[in-house]
């Protein structure tokens, strides 16, 4: 990995240096210039969207790519006319920054819950790992409502919503925490039914896996190239079996991750009823595979990996943090078990 000034990773460094805050002009230009949104002008296929996610992951691009696609897709498929009219155009134009608050993200308090307060509805609870928390304008929240999951679409400025930055391993995601305290919800804020919440998780899994695998791909290629060009004891270090074999382990982790991505993409495109299980299997596996690959690259680089100037740590931080975003391996393993219990019940 180079550290030249115009390397695309420098955008991620600048974002972090600027307090992990999005530059609104950059974000708008990003949305407008790239075929960015599934439901947008370019009508990307799922396969193209994953490719794009991987290309973004490779250079650690900043911006709510997963959230923007997920929110746009949810709006288009399940949103009311009123919701579409209000949110879709500004979303596609990059005028508003969306974020996701899903059940995968966990909480140290109460999970986001919609309860009745007299005749009105109120949203309570909190969630972790909210991306671009300080910049988000629009929240898509998966909340418990009468024992089932319901999606709530709410602007961040509504009274009772508190978004706070947190310190994080990966400073290129703008991670934060959201707290809902007596937030008034209208029926028109709800996105109807149980189905969209499930579809949403699977789409989010696919796109976030794309970003992670792109980062893994780039990190592996760079570590492999380094092992061929770094000499020690009169040889390229990649000729030593102990390093060669660990790089093969990383390559196997990467190929296996891509095989799961392929399987998930096929299952989603073909609307197979196993798609949710495959999504969770993929998230569960890639979480560990990504971290393993990062550590192999880390050890291959040796001391230089400990310098801030080398891009290694940015990739390692991103891949490790991604393993926890949108459900860690343990969460997805529980979901796999639950899907099987549901099937046999």
């Amino acid at each position, binding site marked *: 990995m180079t550290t030249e000034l115009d390397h695309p990773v420098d955008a991620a460094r600048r974002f972090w240096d600027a307090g992990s805050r999005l530059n609104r002009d950059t974000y708008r230009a990003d949305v407008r210039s790239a075929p960015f949104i599934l439901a947008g002008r370019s009508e990307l296929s799922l396969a193209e969207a994953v490719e794009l996610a991987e290309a973004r992951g490779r250079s650690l691009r900043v911006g709510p790519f997963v959230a923007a696609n997920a929110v746009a897709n949810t709006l288009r498929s399940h949103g009311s006319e009123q919701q579409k009219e209000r949110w879709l155009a500004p979303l596609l134009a990059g005028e508003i920054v969306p974020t996701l608050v899903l059940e995968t993200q966990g909480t140290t308090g109460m999970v986001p819950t919609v309860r009745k307060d007299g005749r009105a509805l109120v949203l309570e609870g909190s969630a972790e790992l909210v991306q671009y928390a300080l910049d988000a304008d629009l929240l898509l929240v998966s909340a418990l409502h009468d024992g089932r999951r319901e999606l709530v679409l709410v602007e961040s400025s509504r009274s009772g919503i508190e978004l706070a930055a947190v310190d994080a391993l990966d400073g290129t995601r703008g991670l934060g925490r959201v707290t809902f305290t007596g937030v008034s919800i209208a029926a028109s804020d709800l996105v109807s039914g149980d189905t969209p919440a499930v579809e949403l998780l699977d789409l989010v899994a696919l796109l976030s896996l794309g970003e992670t695998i792109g980062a893994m791909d780039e990190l592996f290629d760079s570590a492999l190239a380094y092992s*061929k060009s770094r000499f020690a004891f009169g040889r*390229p270090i*990649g*000729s030593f079996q102990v390093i060669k*074999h660990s790089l093969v382990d990383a390559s196997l982790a990467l190929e296996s991750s891509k095989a799961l991505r*392929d399987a998930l993409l096929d299952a989603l495109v073909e609307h197979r009823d196993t798609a949710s299980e*495959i999504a969770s299997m993929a998230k569960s596996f890639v979480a560990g595979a990504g971290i393993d690959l990062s550590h192999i690259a880390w050890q291959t680089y040796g001391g230089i990996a400990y310098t801030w100037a080398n891009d290694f740590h940015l990739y390692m931080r991103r891949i490790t943090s991604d393993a926890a975003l949108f459900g860690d391996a343990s969460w997805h*393993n529980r979901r796999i078990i639950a899907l099987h219990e549901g099937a046999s019940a």
Partner: protein
Amino acid sequence: MTNIERPTVEEFRESARAWLDANLERQVGSRKRRTRGMVHRTVEDIAEQRAIQARVHEAGFMGITWPVEYGGRGLSEEYDLAFTSVAADYVMPDLGIAGAVTMIVCANAILRHASDEFKRKHLPRILSGEELWAEFFSDPEAGSDLAGVVTTATRDGDNWILNGAKIWSSGAYYADFGLCLARTDWDAPKHAGLTWFAVDTTAPGVVVEPLKEITGDIEFCREIFTDVVIADSERIGEVGEGWPVAQTVLRFEREASSGSLTSGSVSLDPGPLAPDLVALAARAGRSDDEHALQLIARSHVDDFVLRALGVRMSRLMSEGHPAGPGLVSYTKLAVGMTEPKRAKAAIEIGGAAAVAWGPGDIEGLSTALGYLNSRVTSIAGGTNEIQHNAIGERVLGLPREPSFDKGKTFREIQEAAESWSGTR
């Protein structure tokens, strides 16, 4: 052969169906994979199966694509596929591991490298089940380093005299011949002094010893050769040209062991949740144990990864990936890495139930056998380390380790190895 010589594929299929229906039993239920440690094939049991194979050959359904002069039918691949699809419904003769080694590995090496005289003598007898073959490939002192064999054949007029030992020859205790790799020139470079021979397992000076495996199973054997006389007509390939033949043997060995993993038709349905581990957790009273559930889910994911990886590699190969068939090493390595991991998970899930069970409890035994069998793939047919080298060097383009056997005769290599000190 009683059948007409050039039937159409449909006529052939129908005649096969009619013959099978009249002569063999129908397959009931699905075929189960044999677990090492559960079945032992006796010479008597194999003899019955040989008799059935003789009838299948007599009817004209063995060696369908092989030349007529070697006992085959000389028909195209379509006929073979037609027969295979019909035969799937019947209980076909099962000659055990040596049967598979004979047909998939040895026969293919013979077809490609042996003389016409050799082929006319042996191939018809292979098809009729009269000759079962084992591989006499690895020496006890040469496993991963396949070309390092020291078993030696010395020329003596029209004969060769064989001395040495072989090991890991599956099913050799009931085989009639061994396809044997021997060093015929110690003063040639390592890979240039090798030659293949047919060794009659009943010849004077040949001792075949079945080895009891850690599963209690008896499958592979070791052989000791003392002044065994082999006619030069029993040589396969030219003298000193053994290494290309070895490549053929390895290629068909890989085909035999990894074929199912790289088939593009593998179903990518997640399937039931690791049924063996779910049952084990229940036996151990840990069905609701969070750690056990996590291990079960992880193993279920790993099972799916192997199939998804097989599909991906098969697709990359069909799309003309530059590494080509070298990509098979990924699936081989993945199985070799996953099976031990999965077996260790079973030991954790089962606790006491994984290491002790009631007398005769098949479920308890199967967990233990799964554990004992878990390093078969990581060692046999190319160890994990060999797969790592293959991927690292042929797919990822990493440089080889320095070689200490280039530019030397085999005799010099052996002498240098014996006085190895790590410095040069």
